[in-house]
């Protein structure tokens, strides 16, 4: 995963440094995420994630309710 910057520094301009903006550099080879596919998850991880989703939905409803109460839209306020 060598960058172009390293190649120039070490081989082309001894005693000088060439600094290249990332957008001007040759695209670097990254981790090939497409070939990896989905992450292997155990059943417990899956259950945890589903529980997390349920918790999140509940919390969103509670926050919404709290805001409605604070705004006095239900006829009373904390």
């Amino acid at each position: 995963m060598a960058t172009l910057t390293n190649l120039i520094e070490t081989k082309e301009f001894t005693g000088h440094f060439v600094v290249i903006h990332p957008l001007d550099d040759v695209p670097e080879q990254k981790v090939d995420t497409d070939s990896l596919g989905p992450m292997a998850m155990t059943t417990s991880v899956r259950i945890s994630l589903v529980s997390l989703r349920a918790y999140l939905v509940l919390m969103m409803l509670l926050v919404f309710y709290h805001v409605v109460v604070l705004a006095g839209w239900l006829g009373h306020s904390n």
Partner: protein
Amino acid sequence: MSNKVLMMPAAAVATEDVAPVRGRVVKSKWARDLLTFLMVFGPGLIVMVADNDAGAVSTYSQAGGQYGTHLLWIVLLLLPVTYFIQEMVVRLGIATGKGHAAMIYQRFGKWWGLFSLLDLELVNFLTLVTEFAAINLALTKMGVDPRIGVPLVAVGLVLIAISGSYRRWERTVVFLCLLDLAWFVVAFWVQPPAAQIVRGSLVPGLPPGGLTPDLMFLIIAIVGTTVAPWQLFFQQSCIADKRLRFADLKWARLDTFLGACITITVAGCMMIAGGASLTHGFKFTDPAQMAVDLGGVTNGFIKNVILLMMINAAVLGTTAISLSSSWAYGEVRGWPHSLQLPLRKAPGFYLIYLLCVATAAGLVLIPGAPLQLIILGVQVLAGVMLPSAIIFLQLLLNDKELLGEYANKPWNNWVNWTIIIVLFALSLILAAQVAAPNLFPAA
């Protein structure tokens, strides 16, 4: 520093057939390091400073306006939290060259990817409404008609993004980030009590009256505004768009750390400004009114600086949040999504950005919205959603198949799980408070 520009065909040193490489020649190592840092610098500063958006100005100044300098220690405590979380995003972005939404979609599958995207887009849109509501409020206090000012700001926000140059957008936004330092002038001008600030920052404690429901709600809002879910998506996409390299990792970390330091100290300044209004006996309603109140006891200059900083904070927040929505949507849909692309090559990406800005700007021109309540509610919602967003990040950062040597070390995991547990505890307290309002007796 010798600063010659070097042009050479990339084919001379690489086998790929790409455009000529443009670099700058320097003679010393320190000049190389400085120039490299300046070239890498940007995403970390922007994500952190943009986090001090209109909602943050409101939340921090409310914290100061109600509790003086008593809650400064919470903000200081959030410095390592925000850095550790964003540092993980930096590693993930540099290693994969892809955005956060794309990673969740690819590694957890379509179902979780869509859920994460939906959460992000929902909270982002609500946050954008608050940004424009703050612009509306500040313009009104400055005597500018919001029906003219708000659309003008929206047009400006669209123009800085659609130039087809990442660098042009980044330079403009970094300039706006540096303007945020004017909060130091405000904090200095209101003549804060130095001893109280030091004590409030370094000695954890609760304000007189103890832990009331309102205080708990405000603490969760402070956490929610300092570490927000959109930041994860924004910085990773920004790093991918800027094409940061593995060799840039240490500079990207430094960029993120400096950004975190600036955002936390600026947040402290906002709280100090709020504290000054409390000292003068003003009741806090919103930051624009705070600016008017403080302007009355200092001078008109401070009033205008605070109002302009409110607008600047909202502009920074809007461009960053809208981009995080656009990048995430583009990644999941497989659309071209880069600020480097001209409008005609990434129409969907720019359309999402335009829709985010235009719809939020249009909504706030409808009169009668309870601004302060919406802002606080959105910050709390962000705080509630943050733990689940971090759990996906934590799972991705422990994915050795994906990240190899860039995966989390055991100490990273200890720190991050601690953060997640604390965030969950705060959100559970919120749930308990909402479900049983009398659990925490009022002062």
